[in-house]
């Protein structure tokens, strides 16, 4: 009858919820590939245990009570409550939940509030409809100036761009730009700090180095999300938000066919992750795909040098 069937369903619920969780080697996707990610996983595991126990106890208590007190001609006992018990339960719950929370706040502090040191690699991450773009400050260690009027302007010269715009307007022509020529609007004419900036569509980082990812949005709100690194940050137009993480060296079964970006050998790749968008940004929100390539330190240095050389050459070509 009803009581037994309900109890059975609740038991099935508990088993169906807890067993698959307990059977996973890990709660979150592997490999776990960042330092702060370890703490996040630990915190989640701890929460899962506490919550799992509460969940099981509550559902099983419900199951037990509906069976035990199903109507079999007994008279209900007139109990209006038990204040002391209630207060202690409430206090217990409060202490438990708040303590659990406070225990995890150091992770948050490290993620957002850490100050970069000389070893930190700063990388700018821009989300746009519908791709990701990364920028490295280059040899001078300084990011070039950004100006939206330079988006699509191949010369990276603001004065030239404004001049052309005026000319087109005066001639009644439509001043069109092709974003692909200068995706984020860097001023990179010779002599500016942006001339040596490195641009990639994938995120390339060395292992075991602190990264400061400066996240921004170009048009609408996006969100950079890398599962294995346990990194997520909304990319908001008008804001620049920093997150800190360090990729750690973890074994990973890499896909057979790896096509790394230029200047990277497949054997130098320590880890390889997909990078997704995690904030609704329009029709192709689901297809904003990029990748993270974690390289050995020397491979990263080689890549950086090769990219620097490319950038210098590209600048020379522009000047001609």
């Amino acid at each position, binding site marked *: 009858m009803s009581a037994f069937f309900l109890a059975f369903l609740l038991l099935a619920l508990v088993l169906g919820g807890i067993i698959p969780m307990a059977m996973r080697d890990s709660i979150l996707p592997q490999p776990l590939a960042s330092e702060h990610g370890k703490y996040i996983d630990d915190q989640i595991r701890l929460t899962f245990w506490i919550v799992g126990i509460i969940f099981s106890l509550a559902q099983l208590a*419900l199951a037990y*009570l509906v069976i035990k007190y199903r109507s079999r001609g007994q008279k209900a006992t007139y109990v209006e409550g038990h204040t002391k018990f209630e207060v202690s339960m409430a206090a217990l719950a409060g202490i438990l939940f708040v303590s659990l929370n406070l225990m995890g706040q150091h992770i948050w502090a490290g993620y957002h509030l850490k100050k970069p040191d000389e070893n930190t690699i700063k990388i700018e991450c821009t989300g746009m409809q519908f791709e990701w773009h990364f920028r490295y400050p280059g040899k001078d260690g300084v990011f070039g100036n950004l100006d939206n009027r330079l988006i699509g302007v191949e010369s990276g010269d603001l004065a030239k761009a404004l001049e052309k715009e005026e000319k087109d307007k005066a001639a009644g022509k439509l001043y069109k730009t092709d974003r692909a020529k200068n995706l984020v609007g860097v001023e990179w004419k010779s002599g500016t700090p942006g001339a040596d900036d490195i641009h990639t569509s994938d995120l390339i980082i060395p292992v075991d180095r602190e990264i400061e990812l400066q996240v921004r949005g170009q048009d609408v709100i996006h969100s950079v999300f890398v599962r294995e690194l346990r990194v997520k940050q909304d990319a*908001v137009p008008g804001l620049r938000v920093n997150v800190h993480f360090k990729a750690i060296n973890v074994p990973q079964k890499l896909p057979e066919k790896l096509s790394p970006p230029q200047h990277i050998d497949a054997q130098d790749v320590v880890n390889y992750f997909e990078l*997704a968008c995690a904030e609704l940004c329009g029709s192709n929100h689901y297809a904003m795909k990029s990748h993270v390539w974690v390289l050995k330190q020397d491979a990263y240095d080689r890549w950086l040098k090769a990219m620097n050389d490319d950038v210098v050459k590209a600048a020379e070509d522009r000047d001609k």
Partner: protein
Amino acid sequence: MSSGAVGVDEEHEVHVHTPPTSFIWKYVFSTDHKVIGIQYYTLGLISMFVGVTLSLLFRWHLSHPAGEGVKPFLEGNQYLQYLTMHGTILVFMVLTTAPLGGFGNYVLPIQIGAVDMAFPRLNMLSFWITFASWVTLMAAFFVPGGAPSAGWTGYPPLSAVPEAVPEGATGMNWGQSLWVLSIALFCIASLVGAINFIVTTLDLRARGMTLMRMPLSVWAWFLTAIIALLSFAVLMIGGLLLLLDRHLGTSFFLPNDVWMAGIQGVGKEWSHKGGSPILYQHLFWFFGHPEVYIAILPSMGIVSHIIANFARKPIFGYKAMVYAMAAIGFLGFIVWGHHMFQSGMSPYLAIAFSVLTMTIGVPSAIKTFNWLGTIWKGDLKFTAAMLFSLGFVSLFVSGGISGIFLGQSAPDIYFHDTYFVVAHFHLIMGVASLFGIVAGTYYWFPKMMGRCMNETLGKLHFWGTFIGVYMIFMPMHFIGLSGHPRRYSGFEFDFLNTPEMHISHTLITHAAIFTAAMQIIFVGNMLWSLVAGKKATENPWEGTSLEWTMASPPPWDNFGGKEPVVHHGAYEYSVPGAAKDYVMQTDPPEAVPANAHQPH
């Protein structure tokens, strides 16, 4: 008591007059709270149908992904449009109208012993404004550009700039503006309705109906109305400023360094400066979090009321239940930032919101504990209403538990905007709340319609739905744990294109279809019972509250001209020494022996 109006007698008997007879005044522009309650409920039911159908459409799309030679089921922006409307319709037109507007309107005045709401014509007005809001929202489907596609949360800049969607694509034209307008109308209707609820509860209680003798359902509606009063006004501002940004060139939410292919890319200029997309999120979620309590609190009250009735026991810890609901309502106003941890807001603010969010677990735990305490040592009757109420308790635990992961800012780094969140809010807000509405339907249908619903069908409805909703939403936790982002209409990523993901999606979709089909039993039961159900007696459930003292359905002026006098609390079941196993609130004082109330 002074009435301020000249020449009105105090302390007199109310005369009975015949109700209106023409169809229009009786059923359309009625000021009778009972009719208005049914109107709200019907609006909620129809909206439920629309919202669920939309979800089945985009769920089908997810379980039949485009592939080699396989066209996608939904084209273009349809997926996002259906998703947006599903959320908007269900949150506003179902979860806010049915429990509060529907049952609250019908039952609250009766349960406190009043003839009607304090301001019946205002009540009618708030329903018709809600209806206008509903029409405006539905109209979004039919205007150029179709329904909006920026999610039920509608974050700018996506929702504020038509060019954010490529030319020719759908979802960012008039539909988005109608969406805002619809919500603005809904806010006004809710504010007006909330005033009525609060004032009625404060001033129109019958003699002897003290605050602490009110049924918990009344407390729930009362507290919900207070939450609504204070929160909907803020949503109106968010919507208004969004509308201004969209149409009149202001820059409340739109910053200056925005570049869009549809604007600067084709030589137009970006005319906005210095606004903050995050400001919108603050305004939206300051409303948005209390809104989820608006959705759940009435169901909590209804469920408490029903469980006591069918356990034949007083609610365990009545006062604690009241304080817990009030605490949930109050705390609900200071935790909104937990929707915004990853938004780019100040990390310090995030810490504050995170710690505060944990505290809501406390009153929630008290309530769960007390529901279990009510069942403990009871004499449980498993009617359909009781089954849905017990199901509510299970769902409330399941849904609330996942909140503990999400309320911590660091774990939320991983979980934000994944299916884990979708599982959480569907279980705790969508399904649990719906179970409360359904439980209330089975419970009060005999009273409202004068006929009983079929109990066997009701039980069948419960088993199918209870199994179904868990089959839908439990797997969502798992795909969320695997990092499956929300609002994704395709499977471009390798980590999504796995057999497990596709099987999960297929399972969820089939469970959704099954669960939706189960609701046909419910609606069929209602419709059939309306005409051919067994005639209901005055008090088929042997309940104690005031609605069970009158005929089913109630006479037009509820109490037939005599004001009820209340002598007891709302949960005097199985009182030792009493004649029957329940004492109605209006029974004479001696019905409960003096020593029955033990200190606890």
